[in-house]
């Protein structure tokens, strides 16, 4: 790697709206709330914002995508040199990637990134092979395929190949529920026991109710700025050390070579580590996609925190991934227990932990706040990840 351009970008501001299982507020209302909080958090005003990015953007149902860029630009009366949404790429994290590339290239200086979700709207009508990426839906939904079944077939193969058990996977939602109890914004805060987990209603074997995330309403926003703004940040600036955004082999749900894992997670993880001198052992906290608990296990393997197929023993009993463990994971409760903030809630929590703003759930490392965090997004065929630091390190 000759240049790591994303190191010219920092996260200068973080904002979140009211969040909940079902709240009676619209997508624009929630978006403006999180956006204005992020701008203020960055020590800026809307007049400083010259870039605007979201994921996946107009064209997707409003409830899934949030308001369109043009509508947010209109509502905030923004003067933009760069505005872009994209849905095809390495998951929701591509919104932050787009913003970082914009400030690194000089086309913008302060980019507002938002991600808003307000419940699902299930479409009716025939499946169109042209609009659903990689045939995720097209080749599975005629067979009663669903979001859980697509990940469940991967879990079945992992259980078969590596001896992974439900008790092992269950440590992930149980740990996250424990973390959520310390998060005043979390939707589910009551303790979850292994007995409750093992007896839960099966959704799509081997995934049960508690393996599925919590659909919710909410918006999260960030300001991504050029690194030369770092000295002026009122809060600890979050350095972007490296992104992992690769796709290298057949990404298809059923045609990819190894059905026991996510090739996208492995390829993005390898890409990220190739762009930094940091190693998995340098990571203090992990914020890994958990639309289904099993996906977090896959990301732990792909990112190199344990060997391939060793995710079950790694998470077993939850001590390693606990707040006080060697790799505190999904410390806000994640999408399983906090709220489904559509991937980018994980970046917010990473920023809060690195700033020491995580309250009762704050992680302590070496007697202080964590210095390095990893964030991943993606399920099935899509995956992206990023490594972030407290303060700006190294050079591009």
């Amino acid at each position, binding site marked *: 790697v000759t240049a790591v351009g994303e190191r010219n970008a920092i996260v200068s501001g973080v904002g979140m709206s009211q969040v909940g299982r079902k709240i009676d507020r619209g997508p624009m209302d929630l978006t403006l709330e999180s956006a204005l909080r992020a701008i203020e958090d960055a020590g800026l005003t809307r007049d400083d914002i010259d870039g605007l990015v979201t994921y996946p953007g107009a064209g997707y149902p409003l409830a899934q995508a949030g308001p369109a860029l043009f509508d947010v630009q209109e509502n905030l009366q923004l003067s933009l040199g760069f505005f872009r949404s994209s849905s095809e790429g390495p998951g929701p994290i591509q919104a932050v990637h787009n913003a970082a590339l914009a400030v690194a290239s000089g086309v913008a200086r302060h980019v507002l990134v938002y991600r808003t979700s307000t419940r699902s709207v299930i479409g009716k009508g025939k499946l169109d092979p042209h609009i659903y990426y990689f045939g995720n839906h097209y080749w599975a939904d005629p*067979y009663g395929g669903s979001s859980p079944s697509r990940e469940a077939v*991967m879990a079945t193969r992992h259980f078969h190949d590596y001896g992974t058990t439900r008790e092992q996977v269950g440590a992930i939602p149980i740990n996250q529920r424990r973390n959520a109890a310390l998060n005043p914004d979390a939707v589910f805060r009551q303790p979850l026991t292994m007995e409750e987990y093992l007896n839960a209603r*099966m959704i799509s074997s081997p995934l049960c109710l508690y393996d599925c995330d919590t659909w919710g309403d909410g918006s999260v926003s960030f300001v991504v700025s050029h690194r030369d703004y770092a000295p002026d940040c009122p809060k600890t600036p979050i350095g972007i050390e490296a992104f992992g955004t690769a796709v290298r082999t057949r990404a298809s749900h059923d*045609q990819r070579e190894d059905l026991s894992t996510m090739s996208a997670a492995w390829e993005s993880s390898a890409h990220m580590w190739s762009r930094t001198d940091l190693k998995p052992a340098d990571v203090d906290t992990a914020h890994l996609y958990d639309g289904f608990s099993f996906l977090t296990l896959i990301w732990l393997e792909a990112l190199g925190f344990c060997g391939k197929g060793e995710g079950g023993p790694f998470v077993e009993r939850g001590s390693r991934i606990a707040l006080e463990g060697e790799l505190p994971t999904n410390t806000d409760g994640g999408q399983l227990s906090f709220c489904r903030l559509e991937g980018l809630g994980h970046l917010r929590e990473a920023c809060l932990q690195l700033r020491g703003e995580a309250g009762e759930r704050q992680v302590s490392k070496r007697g202080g706040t964590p210095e390095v965090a990893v964030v991943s997004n993606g399920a099935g065929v899509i995956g992206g990840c990023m490594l972030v630091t407290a303060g700006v390190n190294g050079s591009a």
Partner: protein
Amino acid sequence: VADVAEKVWPEIPNRVTPMVTELNEFFWTGGADGILRMLACEDCGRIIHPPSPRCPYCLSARVSPRELSGRGEVLTYTINYQQWVPDQEPYVIAVVALEEDDSVRLTTNIVCCEPEAVSIGMPVEVQFVEWDGLHLPCFRPAPGAPA
């Protein structure tokens, strides 16, 4: 060739009908005679799925549907218990590798079989299911497999 007149179970009422295009019409409609057809390259011989106007391996434009044995093996599966419609029975979604080339897979249902009897490595054979004017290739246990 399986008897297409036989009652196929379980019912899966939450199927979504795929839009048929010029590229995949043979796949969704070609099973009326009980024979599984998939696109194949006339130059390098490989089976191509999903269908593409050019072979992804040798880039030849000489591609056409080929009749296959309809036999395969379960690579992985899940039993869906979630009732997407009221009173729905559990059903199996599986990924089946084809006998002719195990890198070619179909996401499908294992039918005419107790869901709990399905296992990785189970030999299966095609069993078309009529749905909305199409013939969806599903699979049933091959003779001799537990069911």
